């Protein structure tokens, strides 16, 4: 599945609901990250020339989803970068994560800042072999 085509948004009164889908749990996380950064900028314009890596430990897959998104936001702020490509691997409770992007510059669209991924409408489910990871992000 092409991750670019596998994210979507759902309605929320004040903020924005995001969903990422994939054939694996990890791919659904990656697709949701694309959805989140597409709120922040036009990700088609972001060159994935720099890589950020981080790991975290979380046994609960729903909390892991939130941690993944919030770690990305944190890394994005710390490096003043915006990301367009993502990679997740899982070894039991350990999540090994990579994000690719570039530093903010005047050629990138300034979209809307995402303050954090919330537990509202949080779900990570597998239906008919397709994983779907969803939550509302606070903007």
């Amino acid at each position, binding site marked *: 599945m092409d991750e670019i085509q596998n994210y979507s948004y759902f*309605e929320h*009164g004040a*903020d924005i609901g995001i969903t990422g889908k994939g054939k694996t749990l990890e791919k659904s996380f990656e697709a949701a990250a694309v959805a989140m950064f597409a709120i*922040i900028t036009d990700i088609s314009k972001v060159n994935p020339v720099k890589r950020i890596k981080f790991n975290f430990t979380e046994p609960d897959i729903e*909390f892991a989803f939130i941690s993944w998104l919030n770690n990305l936001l944190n890394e994005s702020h710390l490096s003043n970068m915006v990301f367009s490509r993502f990679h997740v691997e899982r070894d039991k409770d350990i999540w090994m994560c990579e994000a690719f992007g570039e530093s903010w510059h005047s050629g990138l669209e300034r979209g809307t800042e995402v303050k*954090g991924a919330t537990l509202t409408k949080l779900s990570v489910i597998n239906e008919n072999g397709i994983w779907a990871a969803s939550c509302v992000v606070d903007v």
Partner: protein
Amino acid sequence: MNLENFIQIEPNCWAVRLKEEGGGLGGGKEGANLPVRFYADKELLAAMDEKVKEQIINVSQLPGLKGYAFAMPDAHWGYGFPIGGVAAYDPEEGGIISAGGVGFDISCGIRCLKTDLTVEDIFPYAKELSDLLFRNIPAGVGAEGNITLNEAELDEIMLNGAHYATSKGYGTKEDILYIEDSGKVSGADPSMVSISAKRRQKSEMGTLGSGNHYLEVQAVKQIFDENIAGVFGLKEKQIVISIHCGSRGLGHQVGTDYLITLAKAAAKYGINLPDRELACAPIKSVEGGMYLGAMNAAINVALCNRQMLTQLTRDAFEKIFPKAAIKTLFDVSHNTCKAEKHTVNGKELLLYVHRKGATRAFGPFHPSLPDLFKETGQPVIIGGSMGTGSYVLAGTKESEERSFSSASHGAGRAMSRNQALKLWKGREVIDELKEKGIIIRSRSMRGVAEEAPDAYKNVDAVAEATEKARLAKRVCYLSPVICIKG
């Protein structure tokens, strides 16, 4: 919202009656009223999303609630708490503190400045002023400030709030008098703030942020109460400035760090969460104490940030109006949990009052108010949305028993951001507002479209309902002249 379960107990106050047979939410009997109150007129209430009712009922079920959980007239669907939700919990009865009840944008609020300039003074220079403000105030996603901090300086900000800013030349001691909690809250514990949160803030002090944040130059257009307006120092055609922003990256990261911590703590303490976003822990627990220390540190960061932005605003104005006097009217916070004394059933209690998208609204003679506001109550600011204007109100004596001294904070969204993006383009919104004489400056056309004036409720109706519910009294209406949009 379907009003079938609502009982109108006053013209602008509504209860919700339990319908489920044999109990249900709250374990009450059919026909019993739930411990919730909605303050709104019928139109505002009907326009609220069903989720507001669901969320405020969830809030009312958390341990240690005192009195009622309240929805303000601008309430809309949030995460965990509704935006415009108020609830107070008693630590002596197992009361909780909820990260979801405060939100990510801790102490997001409005600093309102009054000037000695008039509309006539500003109009010839409006374009030049908007350029200067746009240059001086870092705004929008990815924008970094010009103020960089080391670890010790950040720790000092977390402890001393706006006082740090004035000690470094950002504003005056007079500003401090007119900030809630005199510019800093007690109970901040920088050691409870993660290294990530601190690192995020190093280049975000003195920045406006994004989303619904703004800096707006406004004109006093209509006075509702001449006496109080006189005390506040406001008159028709006067220019005021409103700065809407919060604790930036540090606050966002504190919210993030504690969300899962408190969700797990709730399970540990046997608290049944109807919505996991209500992540909470008993106030007297270790986790509750940790969050309180970190959240108070974030509140102080927000107070300092708005103080720094105040000075950056003055610097921009002074380039065109070197003799202009720009003074702080008041600084209010929206997303907080504060320890406050309130009288419940004749007994004074120390309660932890969550205000999520709601403004504190202390009435006349409250002991914490500066002398200037002793007889009027504190200024309450209801922010609008670019084209729609804002209101200054004054806290009432009655709001103490009606809402733990709380009132509306803004117009409140009427539709989702996705819906707004389908209806408007940023450039079109800017051009339409220009036709009305309002200058919008923003780096984000998407942000402008999401924040289009008609994406919000009618701010006039919200302010009127707030007054009719006796939460705060209208003092004056402000119309926008220049808006720097985050």
